[in-house]
């Protein structure tokens, strides 16, 4: 039940519901979309970006918060650890235990390589776990990988690396089959036909799902498989610096126990960065739908060692983050809610856009509705628009919400909102890092040999905007690919003398660029605790 302040608007939404269900809103033209994005999308707010003056992407702009940790010092000095006495010595070191990391681990293990996964939290503590909506693959007769290509490439504003998109869409059906064969419970009808829906920007219904626990179902299955294979996982241990060898090839990482701060040296013939996204950097002060550990660590590790970023200036703001109640502010409301028929409605009960525009367009459109047109709903903590969820029950029949999006129902029911009967309030939330480390088709960074990247830490697969369901797909396609490639490569690698010289090299570059900072990175975790320094000075604690 909503408080009194919402009732007037709710009545308007309810009164217009039947007509709004029947309405097929016009999709925007390409020009309209371009203008909308330029005016309202956060990626275009130039005062929120800094131009990098040191490192491989010198001269390019990135969010201010990212610039601060890219152009920062290492957490360690190069002589903090004894590189001659590694604590671990493996063929494939995988940094990150999410969907990409686990997929890579399974495939590298399949190749017979000695694999180790390090993760700063637990295996499966990752954005993969939180991906609700689904995974794309063109496996229906009316669809094709080429059709999927056009959707993904167009949705990404024609900026993606085409060879990566080709791999994404061509490997997709086989990846669904792989997951299915591992035991992932996809939604199917009684004949085995996958239940597929639209996502924003798709031209065919190719969104496969496991209710609205799609990512969680995939993640827990992959984690179980990693455990079954008895692949070593070192948890609560972060990689804080890459190690190169004398030839400049990736050769391991310095690890830090998150609880005791003890340092370890992991030597490896190949390294896979699968560290995920950056939502917890809270770019431009946005709330986020991301996991606690999403702090762009992999970008920092790679950048300091000399790997290039691609499209690090483009972020995805998911159009429908929860705007109310405060306890779930910023939490993801899956796009599947719109796939199932719910439309976006303003304070007056008007449908103001087609519900399945691409995410960047939808986010910008909601921001315009609230900020410029004054048609937002005041939530007490900010603005939001209605997502008219009772439409789903009218369109799909009673019970559709519980059957198809139980996690969403549960999330709002906890706070007394029955989304079957009442609409929910949404506003864009920081959701995905479109950019990341640049890779070649084999998953390797072009400028550091034996350094592979997979998952959200990669840039270039999705161009400047990602479609729903292409991220769960990309972590599987490129996670497995990186695992295979590293699993093969390690057989021909001889590691030279280990060095951390790049730390000093990067510091010198910072100095030359006139950057003075006391920031150390990677950040590892966000800080949500109050600053007690005025209450309890350090000297007194001692």
């Amino acid at each position: 039940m909503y408080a009194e302040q919402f009732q007037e608007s709710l009545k308007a939404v309810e009164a217009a519901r039947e007509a709004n269900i029947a309405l097929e809103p016009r999709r925007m033209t390409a020009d309209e979309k371009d203008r909308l994005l330029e005016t309202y999308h956060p990626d275009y707010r130039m005062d929120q970006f800094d131009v990098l003056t040191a490192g491989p992407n010198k001269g390019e702009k990135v969010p201010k918060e990212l610039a601060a940790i890219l152009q920062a010092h290492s957490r360690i000095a190069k002589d903090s650890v004894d590189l001659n006495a590694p604590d671990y010595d493996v063929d494939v070191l995988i940094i990150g235990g999410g969907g990409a990391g686990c997929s890579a681990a399974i495939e590298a293990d399949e190749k017979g390589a000695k694999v180790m996964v390090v993760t700063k939290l637990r295996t499966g503590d990752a954005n993969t776990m939180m991906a609700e909506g689904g995974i794309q693959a063109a496996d229906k007769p009316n669809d094709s990988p080429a059709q999927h290509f056009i959707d993904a490439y167009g949705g990404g504003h024609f900026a993606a690396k085409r060879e990566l998109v080709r791999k994404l869409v061509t490997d997709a059906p086989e990846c669904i089959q792989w997951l299915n064969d591992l035991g992932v419970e996809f939604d199917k009808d009684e004949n085995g036909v996958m239940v597929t829906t639209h996502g924003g920007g798709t031209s065919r219904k190719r969104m496969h799902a496991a209710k609205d626990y799609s990512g969680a179902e995939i993640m827990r299955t992959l984690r179980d498989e990693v455990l079954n294979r008895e692949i070593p996982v070192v948890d609560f241990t972060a990689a804080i610096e890459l190690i190169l060898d004398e030839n400049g090839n990736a050769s391991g990482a310095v690890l830090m126990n998150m609880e005791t701060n003890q340092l370890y040296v992991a030597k490896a013939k190949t390294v896979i960065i699968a560290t995920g996204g950056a939502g917890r950097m809270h770019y431009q002060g946005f709330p986020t739908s991301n996991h606690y550990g999403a702090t762009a660590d992999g970008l920092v590790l790679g950048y300091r060692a000399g790997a290039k970023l691609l499209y690090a200036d483009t972020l995805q703001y998911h159009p429908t983050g929860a705007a109310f109640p405060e306890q779930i502010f910023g939490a993801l409301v899956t796009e599947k809610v719109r796939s199932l028929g719910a439309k976006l409605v303003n304070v007056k009960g008007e449908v103001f856009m087609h519900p399945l525009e691409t995410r960047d367009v939808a986010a910008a459109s909601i921001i315009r509705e609230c900020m410029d047109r004054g048609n937002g709903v005041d939530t007490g903590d900010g603005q939001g628009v209605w997502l008219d969820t009772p439409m789903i029950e009218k369109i799909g029949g009673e019970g559709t919400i519980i059957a198809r999006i139980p996690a969403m129902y549960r999330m709002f029911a906890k706070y007394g909102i029955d989304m079957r009967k009442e609409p929910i309030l949404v506003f864009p939330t920081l959701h995905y890092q479109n950019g990341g480390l640049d890779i070649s088709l084999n998953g390797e960074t072009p400028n550091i040999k034996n350094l592979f990247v997979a998952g959200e830490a990669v840039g270039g697969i999705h161009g400047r905007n990602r479609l729903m369901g292409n991220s769960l797909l990309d972590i599987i396609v490129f996670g497995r690919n990186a695992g295979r490639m590293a699993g093969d490569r390690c057989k021909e690698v001889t590691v030279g003398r280990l060095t951390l010289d790049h730390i000093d090299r990067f510091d010198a570059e910072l100095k030359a660029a006139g950057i003075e900072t006391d920031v150390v990175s990677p950040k590892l975790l966000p800080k949500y605790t109050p600053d007690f320094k005025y209450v309890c000075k350090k000297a007194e604690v001692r």
Partner: protein
Amino acid sequence: MENFVNIYLFGKEYKVPDNLTIMKAMEYSGYQLKRGCGCRNGFCGACATIYRVKGRQELKACLACQTKVEEGMYIATLPFFPLVKKVFDIEKISADQQIMMQLYPEIYACVGCNACTKVCPQELNVMQYIAYAQRGDFKRCAEESFDCVMCGCCSTRCPAGISHPQVAMLARRINGKYLAPKSQHLADRVQEIKDGTFDQLIEALMDKPVEEIKELYNNRDIEK
């Protein structure tokens, strides 16, 4: 105006705003979380927590990221619980009752106390899905346990020492791989791709000028 409540974190009293979740209340009180915090959104099960409200008998379990504080809550987080996970080869196991007896024989020692169900933060019928597992009804076990976040609260209360989330995990994998109907259209498409059916279509896109792809994109037909 913000209202405050008194809560007890590991027995120590803190005053926190009453609209916070337990997780946010811990952070408000100054805890920089390392364990016991994951997705912060109810999917990962990292923040299993037990509590008892002062003056009440009942011991409750919850996810700290999903539960609002209330006056007089005595809170202990449970960031790790030693669940038993048995290793198996998904390609080789049989999809019958035998496998449960072999891997998780303790489920047959269930005394029917239903403490697992009462404590489940996801409100699952845990004892029921264990009953399905006992019978080798993996499909029902999978359905009944589907929303499990593997927080382990159930297992903390089990006198028989059952690791319920792991039993359910096994059942779901068996169901997904062996029992759910096969997807012929998927197998067909994988074969077509192997046969190179779409190679020409895709190759034609690789070198096409951006303007032409834009035309294709902006004028593509969209399935209703």
